[in-house]
């Protein structure tokens, strides 16, 4: 609302105060995490047995141990590869598929229900097929993760493309655009809020895909590590593994946030979102 409230201040001071505010923001956003950790530490052994939830100090110690011994490194690398590959393949497929069906209502009417139905299949029930087709190595996890990612990206791109303003499309056609140009100059930018939303939501699901995959079959990876820790009553190990997964998620989310700000710069170039409630 008060876009211009701070406009009077001298540029240098503004810059500093902005940095300061950003720092404050960051501090505030850490707060719930800290509260959670403290509560966890307190509740563990009091409200709920440590064997089920471990506790932050134990997890920190376990994490240190895992890195100091290097034991976790190969798991980290494997899972990292699976995540990146699965995510990239899924996003690429989702964008292409969603775009095609979004542009062609006819194709959409035919195939959309199948895509939806395919997602209702509990993939765990298809474990044998996955093993036969993709093996027990990195392949089956990449496949699962990219399927998960595909779905979310697919639906978002599909909806995004369908929501593009017809009049802009028509205008661009009159201007002389061919289909490829229409895609690049109109459909993709106009659908970008949806595409980015899909890419963001897909981040944790790529992790879920990889973990489900590793639970189903694997030789190495964080999911396997977590599963092993869980069946050998090593709760600190379980949560240490989870924390590492969260690391992946948060890094990817941070990168996606930057991409979003970059691509959607045009939406609110100088001003802040309105009417904070």
């Amino acid at each position, binding site marked *: 609302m008060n876009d211009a409230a701070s406009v009077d201040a001298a540029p240098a001071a503004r810059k500093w105060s902005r940095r300061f505010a950003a720092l404050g923001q960051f501090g505030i956003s850490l707060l719930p995490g800290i509260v959670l950790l403290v509560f966890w530490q307190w509740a563990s052994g009091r409200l709920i047995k440590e064997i089920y939830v471990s506790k932050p100090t134990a997890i920190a110690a376990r994490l240190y141990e895992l890195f100091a011994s290097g034991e976790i490194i190969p798991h980290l690398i494997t899972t990292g590869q699976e995540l990146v590959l699965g995510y990239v393949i899924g996003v690429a497929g989702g964008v292409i598929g969603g775009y095609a069906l979004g542009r062609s209502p006819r194709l959409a009417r035919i195939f959309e229900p199948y895509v939806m139905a395919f997602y209702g299949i509990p993939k765990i029930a298809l474990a044998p097929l996955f093993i036969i087709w993709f093996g027990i190595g990195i392949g089956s996890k990449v496949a699962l993760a990219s399927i998960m990612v595909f779905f979310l990206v697919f639906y978002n791109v599909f909806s995004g493309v369908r929501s593009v303003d017809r009049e802009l499309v028509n205008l*661009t056609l*009159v*201007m002389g655009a*061919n289909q490829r140009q229409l895609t690049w*100059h109109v459909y993709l930018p*106009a659908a970008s809020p949806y595409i980015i939303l899909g890419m963001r939501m897909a981040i944790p699901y790529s992790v879920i895909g990889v973990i489900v995959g590793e639970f189903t079959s694997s030789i190495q990876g964080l999911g396997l590590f977590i599963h092993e820790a869980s069946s050998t009553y090593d709760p600190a190990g379980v949560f240490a593994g989870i924390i590492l997964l969260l690391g992946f998620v948060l890094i990817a989310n941070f990168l996606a946030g930057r991409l979003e700000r970059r691509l959607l710069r045009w939406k609110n170039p100088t001003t802040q979102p309105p009417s904070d409630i």
Partner: protein
Amino acid sequence: MTGQVLAFDGIGQDFATPGSGGRIRVLDGISFDAEPGQFVAVIGPSGCGKSTLLQMAAGLLMPTRGNVKHHGRTIDSVNQAVGFVPQQAQLFPWKTLQENVELPLVLRSVPAEQRRAQVAKAIEAVGLKGFENYYPNQLSGGMQKRGSIARTLVYRPDVILMDEPFGALDAQTRMVMQNDLQTLSAEAGATVIFVTHDITEAVVLADRVVILSQRPSRLLANIAIDLPRPRDVFEPFKNPGFEQAYDAVWSVFRSQIDIRGAH
């Protein structure tokens, strides 16, 4: 009757009325045409179907009855041979002004250097120099509209469809732009279909003024304006013969006012 660039032939248009399931007749047998290099102004009451006519010429809407011919060929798909300035500015919100104006050239694979020069000239011509890096939502309503005009004129189409291009502009900017448009269309020999609400503007710019009636819209008159060119757009009434031409249009128009009646 040969050699018409655009020919509207017995155009009729019905739209489904929401709710009732009935149909509303918007255009009812409109026929007129534009010869090469002609400047045709279309005037008519709000909601009578002027924008609808332009959309047909651009191939974005197929008429219910009749057809639109472009160089003798019936338009049955998007017409890429025309330039279209829509009623709402419709700039691409994700492109800066510069990128917006540049787009038609990019679509035509004009080399970057030439593009830059042409874009700079077009932006300058609509008085937006200095705003190249602004996104549309940072521009005023009139500036957006001017951007939209620049985007069409930049690639010099043979046929230009303009839907109330100068409606949102103040008197001075409007006159400058009217003058520019007159020069440009004369130089390039472009055919222009120009929807406007301003009778003075129609008369001072056009070779013919097409007047439509209330919905369901019929052609009330198609009046030739035979004033010598170039015309003075800054003081229209000083053009010799202007007053008679104006009165000819105005008298047709006036008949429409009386329908709704001055209270």
